[in-house]
């Protein structure tokens, strides 16, 4: 977070408890203006709860939330003027057409017809949805529904956009369109807070908050977080991946050898040091057809190592 972009979202000691147990506790974080902040974690980690609290549709049991200086808990209605919230199941009005849905939300935010039309045209073109404007929302594909939801959320220019798992189950092409629109928003200075359980989607965010069982484990840029990972990662691809895994598992300096599909992800303490030994061990095991190369760690690798291999869950 640079000094030139002060925090637009400030959360302190936020807590919310539920009877079933899946709440959040002692959350502290800040989002800088204009960044895409990702809340990453499995189901039950607290992502949706945070989104709902930020959106002012749920009241916390403790702590404070300030969005652009407004106290969301004390004065949610003022906060809502500049925040757009897209829940996990963004219910569109299925009997209304694309245009009618957009018009409805524009009216709620009191956007005049000209601005609405101009903005809608732009967003719909970016989503490839212009030919479907007169179609009823219930008859759109999953990806299109999400894009329509995004368009409705953006028909007024919010300062903060809250997205709860916006691309769950959506086809990759629609997901690209979606992210293209999100990136376009940064030009307008919109801050985006996004919750996702797609660990690969997390890579697209400016900064990440890793959540686990209601607490935030770490909060930083993806690259900085990956540096936290102990050791280095290599990948060995081979038709005899299983045999390779067995051969490497006990080697010195090899922290873990994990089978992933048709390759083995190897966590070593020092790649340069261990490469030779690994190649040697593989050759000795009769694994000829192989490719060993360095592997950039993914968020999943990061999460796994932070939570501990085969740890409690």
């Amino acid at each position, binding site marked *: 977070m640079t000094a030139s972009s002060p925090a637009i979202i400030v959360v302190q000691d936020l807590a919310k408890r539920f009877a079933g147990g899946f709440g959040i506790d002692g959350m502290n974080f800040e989002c800088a203006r204009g960044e895409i902040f990702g809340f990453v974690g*499995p189901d039950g980690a607290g992502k949706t709860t945070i989104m709902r609290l930020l959106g002012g549709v749920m009241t916390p049991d403790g702590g404070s939330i300030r969005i652009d200086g407004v106290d969301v808990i004390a004065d949610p209605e003022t906060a809502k003027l500049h925040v757009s919230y897209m829940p996990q199941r963004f219910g569109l009005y299925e009997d209304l057409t694309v245009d009618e849905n957009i018009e409805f939300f524009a009216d709620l935010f009191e956007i005049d017809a000209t601005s609405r039309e101009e903005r809608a045209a732009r967003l719909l073109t970016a989503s490839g949805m212009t030919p479907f404007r007169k179609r009823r929302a219930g008859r*759109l594909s999953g990806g299109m529904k999400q894009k329509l939801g995004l368009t409705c959320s953006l028909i007024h220019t919010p300062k903060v956009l809250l997205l709860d798992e916006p691309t769950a189950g959506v*086809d*990759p092409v629609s997901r690209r369109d979606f992210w293209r629109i999100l990136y376009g928003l*940064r*030009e307008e200075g919109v801050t985006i807070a996004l919750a996702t359980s797609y660990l690969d989607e997390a890579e*697209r965010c400016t900064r990440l908050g890793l959540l686990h069982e209601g607490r935030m484990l770490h909060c930083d840029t993806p690259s900085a977080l990956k540096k936290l990972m102990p050791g280095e990662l290599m990948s060995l691809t081979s038709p005899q991946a299983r045999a390779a895994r067995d051969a490497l598992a006990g080697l010195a300096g090899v922290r873990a050898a994990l089978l992933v599909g048709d390759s083995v992800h190897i966590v070593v303490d020092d790649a340069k040091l261990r490469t030779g030994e690994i190649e040697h061990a593989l050759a000795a095991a009769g694994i000829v057809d192989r490719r060993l190369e360095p592997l950039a760690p*993914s968020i999943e690798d990061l999460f796994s190592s932070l939570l501990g*291999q085969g740890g409690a869950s």
Partner: protein
Amino acid sequence: MSPDAPEGEARIVTERLAKRFGAFTAVNEVSFSVRRGEIMGFLGPNGAGKSTLIRMLCGLLRPTSGRAEVAGLDVARNPERVRAVIGYMSQKFSLYNDLSVIENLRFFGGIYGVRGKRLAERVEFAIEMAGLAGRADTAVADLSGGWKQRLALGCAVLHQPPILFLDEPTSGVDPTSRRRFWDLIYALSEQGVTVLVTTHYMDEAEYCNRIALINRGRLVALGSPSELKRGAAEGRLLLVECDDVGPLLEALESAPGVRDVAPFGSSLHLLVDDPAADIPKIERFLAARGLGWTRVEPIKPTLEDVFVRLVGDGRLEEATP
């Protein structure tokens, strides 16, 4: 490249399998085969037809046309017998929340016709496998995601089926649990169990031996994860790291030789025709516009890149009815 599993006869074979619901084609002439002990993943977005395909293979839906054989049984002619040789697991839907661990296991055992001594043995095995020793009487509602997942798997294999269907098995589950779960699957696969997985998570699909990409009812690609990545875009994907993504994104969209630009956090992924020639071109292009960057280098594509590449810029997607 063929997978590592013990060679064997094909356990699942489909030939131009199709399912139509009125005017809507859910599965459009899909053909593939899965070997004994292989782990095959079906990757595609919601509504692509994965569930319909699996249901046909489980004998729950009659195919409209084409053929499918599971463990030598024709699914259209012997759906009941097919169901007897299959284990089905869907983490979100299989377990009864108000029953305990052991009650669930006994229930599923009963359903699959596992009785008496054999049931007792299998139940013990399942509890061990799931790591739930000593917690047999816990209500399922009190278990978290990872435990439920392993329990659901246990319920699915009580009758030692030769074929296992996993429907979105690790959606939303934490990576550690996912790791543990997949270790169990790998163990089963080594014993010769054929596993089919459906998922819309790209990183989950990486765990499979081979992946079938499904989009709008069609089989778009079939191969091991590395095969697919090599085929589609390897060598042609560039990473451009920079401080300010926005202006570079706009500029590069119209740069020569650049087929596609996608933002990724604080960097951009570019699809080009010829990296060797294009890298210097791009660097010059950016310099000419006064745009700064930290590095430009080739990177390995992800499955998502593969998918987008194969499915194309299809903006003309039809809405579902």
